[in-house]
């Protein structure tokens, strides 16, 4: 045999094989029942190394109790939707999906398996979850996911700056007027210090104010005329316009974007006295303590005290070959054992009312008013997640309100533009 020929073939073959990783193949899951053979469950995970480590803790605890189950985490990175879509198209979607705010969309597209039968069969008590968190997980009456973590938005405030301005510390019952007066007093234009940071490119931070203003923003229907073409909406838009463009109590969107990563640390650098975040700042503030006294307080009350939240939901994909095993793992993760692990790691709240888990959070006493997070959960408003076009609508809201905050559009014109543009998007979605 000609060795050169053999070598050439091998080399050419190796180069061809280099292209193979570009192709994916359907996941091969052992669907053998029986205690002796291992069943592999694939679970999509995402987030920072710390967050993935928390998920791994849950997996390890589960496999220690179920030795015949092997759990394979699939890291879907930061571009979660894109990666999930790719895996679904390739036919290798993990058994358990990391769906969060996309539950409704994925359910509407038939990607998720409804959980009602399993819940009924196992008499799984879903009353341990706040109804506010289950609202966006239902599609056409069926429940498609269960919540693991919730991170309600609260207001972080700089105690030192409040004291220096002679202002009393805010309480959980404070009103929007008290908030605004405080923010105004804390603003010092000559020193480029602001009372509050109204974030940009974060539509939930606009929707939060709308919700508190009594606007029942709902994009699950054909039009937003009934919810957005109201005096309440105009009042909220005028409030934001005054705060950012007129009184300049907050940096405007252009200034915030120009700051780049600097915008994330304006609270740490004492350039703003207050800002709105969830629990995700806690690990940072613990690892690198702030140079001043600070605490948290619930969002100020307008017509109500509703707030937005970050949320982690698990669902089972329709293409799973191990429905029962996946459901068992899901049940475990959102059950008392899983929730205790969430609580111990202090990065998000357990999504259930489980007393033991929530007590761990309260006992951490970090920050002092940590109960503000737990008290906010029943008031979490996620109703706008019930839509297949939420991202597109949110982009329009962000762009339109940004124009208003840069003083390029009046609140009245912004309101009209919002109704018109969102209705156009909803009409398109209906026609498909």
């Amino acid at each position, binding site marked *: 045999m000609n060795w050169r020929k053999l070598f*050439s*073939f091998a080399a*050419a073959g190796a*180069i*061809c094989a*280099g*292209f193979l990783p*570009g192709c994916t193949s359907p996941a091969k899951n052992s669907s053998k029942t029986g205690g002796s053979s291992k069943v592999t469950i694939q679970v999509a995970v995402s987030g920072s190394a710390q967050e993935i480590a928390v998920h791994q803790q849950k997996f390890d605890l589960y496999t220690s109790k179920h030795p015949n189950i092997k759990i394979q985490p699939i890291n879907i990175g930061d*571009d979660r*939707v*894109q990666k999930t*879509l790719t895996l*679904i*198209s390739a036919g290798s979607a993990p058994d358990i999906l990391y769906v969060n705010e996309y539950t409704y*969309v*994925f359910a509407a*597209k*038939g*990607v998720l398996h409804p959980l009602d039968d399993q819940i009924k069969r196992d008499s799984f008590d879903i009353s341990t979850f706040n109804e506010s968190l289950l609202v966006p997980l239902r599609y056409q009456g069926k429940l498609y996911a269960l919540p693991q973590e919730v991170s309600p938005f609260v207001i972080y405030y700089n105690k030192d700056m409040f004291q220096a301005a002679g202002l009393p510390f805010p309480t959980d019952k404070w009103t929007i007027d008290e908030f605004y007066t405080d923010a105004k007093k804390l603003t010092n234009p000559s020193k*480029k210090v602001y009372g509050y940071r109204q974030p*940009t*490119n974060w539509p939930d931070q606009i929707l939060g104010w709308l919700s508190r203003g009594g606007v029942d923003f709902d994009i699950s229907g054909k039009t937003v005329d009934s919810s957005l073409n109201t005096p309440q909406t105009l009042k909220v838009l005028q409030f934001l316009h005054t705060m950012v463009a007129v009184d300049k109590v907050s940096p405007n*969107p*252009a*200034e915030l*974007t*120009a*700051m*780049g*990563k*600097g915008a994330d640390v304006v609270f740490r650098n004492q350039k703003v006295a207050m800002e709105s975040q969830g629990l995700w700042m806690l690990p940072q503030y613990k690892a690198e303590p702030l140079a001043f006294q600070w605490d948290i307080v619930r969002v100020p009350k307008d017509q109500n005290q509703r707030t937005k939240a970050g949320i982690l939901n698990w669902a089972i994909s329709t293409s799973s070959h191990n429905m029962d095993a996946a459901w068992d793992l899901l049940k475990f993760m959102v059950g008392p054992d899983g929730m205790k692990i969430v609580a111990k790691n202090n990065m998000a709240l357990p999504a259930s009312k489980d007393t033991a888990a929530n007590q761990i959070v309260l006992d951490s006493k970090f920050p002092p008013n940590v109960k503000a997070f737990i008290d906010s959960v029943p008031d979490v408003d996620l109703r706008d997640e019930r839509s*297949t*076009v939420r*991202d*597109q609508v949110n*982009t329009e809201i962000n*762009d339109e309100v*940004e*124009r208003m905050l*840069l003083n*390029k559009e009046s609140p009245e014109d912004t309101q009209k533009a919002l109704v018109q543009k969102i209705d156009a998007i909803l009409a398109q979605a209906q026609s*498909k």
Partner: protein
Amino acid sequence: MLKIACRVLFSPNKSVRTWKHNACSSAIMKRTANILAARESVHPVLIKMGRKRKISLASNENFWAYVFLAPIIIGFLAFTIFPVIMSFYYGLTSYDGITSPKFVGIGNYIELASDENFLKSLWNTVYFTLGTVPVGAFLALIVAVGLNAKIHFVNLYRTAFFIPVVVSTVAVSMVWQWMYNQDYGLINLFLGKLGLYQPPWLASTSWSMPSVIIMSIWKGLGFNAVILLAGIQGISPSLYEAAEIDGASGIQKFWHITVPMIHECMAFVLINGLIGSFQTFDQIYVMTNGGPAQSTQVISWLIYMNAFRYFKQGYASAMAYILFLIIFIASILQLHLSEKKNY
């Protein structure tokens, strides 16, 4: 004879080429047959063996050529050509990425014609390209002429100019973002010291795109300069000597010798720049995130959002094809314009 043959062989006229091909091949075949017949009559066995070895040697080489070309061809077909064709198909459908596509014909393209966001992004992309490519190419030419000078440490300067090209776009964008800061940035600091106007740079809707353009020109300068430098070094010094004898000044030499002689290199720089600028994404999204107020929002971002956030892959594919057509037409025009000059 050769000229005529070339003109015929490379004639754009298909019928001419076919006729000539047929005439050529039949003539060649006749001649080969004659030679073979003549040889066979002399040494039948030897000729047969010779023929076999000749054929197998030629086809042997061809075979191995194909084997080694195979991986790249297969890869190109599978990962470039096939997706391009499928993308054209998806552009004619309404496809959310999960459920099967629904054929809508040119519905997507009609919708695009009236889509405010698309038209605005298209304008921004064109603005960015017009700002970056011609100015960048001209500045690169000046730099290339400078780097061609026989001065000390010229290699150090060449390296210095090329470094921005190899540094990560994201890292460069973040540094420039800080430099552009209207209150604390280095640029406004210097402008202030010189008593000049300190623009709000990235915080203003009118200054944001120029800011991104300036940074992009700076980053691509080295690459273009190196290519143009190679072109300049290929110009015969006798031309410059002749011009000096005729009393031409430096600037005259530049405009009348350097610029015309490197028009092919320049064409490459311009087309390459055009293709790249139309697809730009990284530096814009780090520095301005498409803002403020969509003043720097470009097409590539819109395509991404439509495909992977709005679940409108059909619409995004149609957008991508329009982008492709624009770049294609612009490149063809550019090639045509630079081909006109023949020396």
